[in-house]
């Protein structure tokens, strides 16, 4: 493949250039992706905080309800015990 027309065609193909604005287009999209990624990162942090708060609140709520149940049982049973002893 040393023929001149082929070499000429090959040289032309090697000179093909992308449009001048392509790098700027890519970088503006990269910047957009980066800001989206940061926003997503913050969202995940907030979600984690929310989840942990909810989990804590859930634990408090469970222990409070357990405590309330114990009080109710105690007050319900106490007069019976007092009556039995008397």
């Amino acid at each position, binding site marked *: *493949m040393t*023929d*001149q*027309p*082929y070499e*000429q*065609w*090959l040289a*032309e*193909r*090697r000179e*093909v*250039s*992308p*449009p001048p604005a*392509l*790098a700027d*287009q*890519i*970088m503006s*999209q*990269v*910047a957009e*992706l*980066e800001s989206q990624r940061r926003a997503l990162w913050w969202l995940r942090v907030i979600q984690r905080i929310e989840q942990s708060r909810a989990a804590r609140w859930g634990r408090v709520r469970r222990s409070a309800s357990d405590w309330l149940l114990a009080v109710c049982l105690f007050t319900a049973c106490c007069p019976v015990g007092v009556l039995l002893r008397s």
Partner: protein
Amino acid sequence: MEIDDRELVRRVFAGQTDDFRTLVDRHQQSVFRFASGLLGNREEAQDVTQEAFLAAFLNLSGYDASRAAFSTWLFTIARNRCLNLLKQRRPIAIHKPDSIGGVSPADPMISQELSQQLDRALAALPVEQRSAFVLAEIEELPYAEIARIERTSLGTVKSRIHRAKQRLQSLLEPVMRESK
């Protein structure tokens, strides 16, 4: 002193995203040329180049510098994008470029015509041959790197390039005969 690709990738990964521009400036032309040769269309080649860089940026954590050069990895992404695009395309009726006789390459107009004929001949090659040919002849990459991009053996790459050249040469022969 020029910062190498590996260091630039490390910096981008560490949050210095502006350094990605150096990678874009360094490789956009070769990726565009490759996509252009494979797709035969400037607009699509531009889209593929853009998509390849964005995919590279998003998946930078998946790039292993110890396994391949950044350019090899980028070419692999671009190649896959091109193949997807070619699969989506409707089959285009390509004129059988067997007859390009009756032209003399000395004339610039005819030379342009010949160039177009060669473009058509390239487009008519099976995609594997076309891809290997573009990487070898236009990008002038070593065969071993082409084998990594194409995910095939060195022997297969050599055979694909050889067959592609044979085909193009057979198309060029009548023209050469005419011009002598």
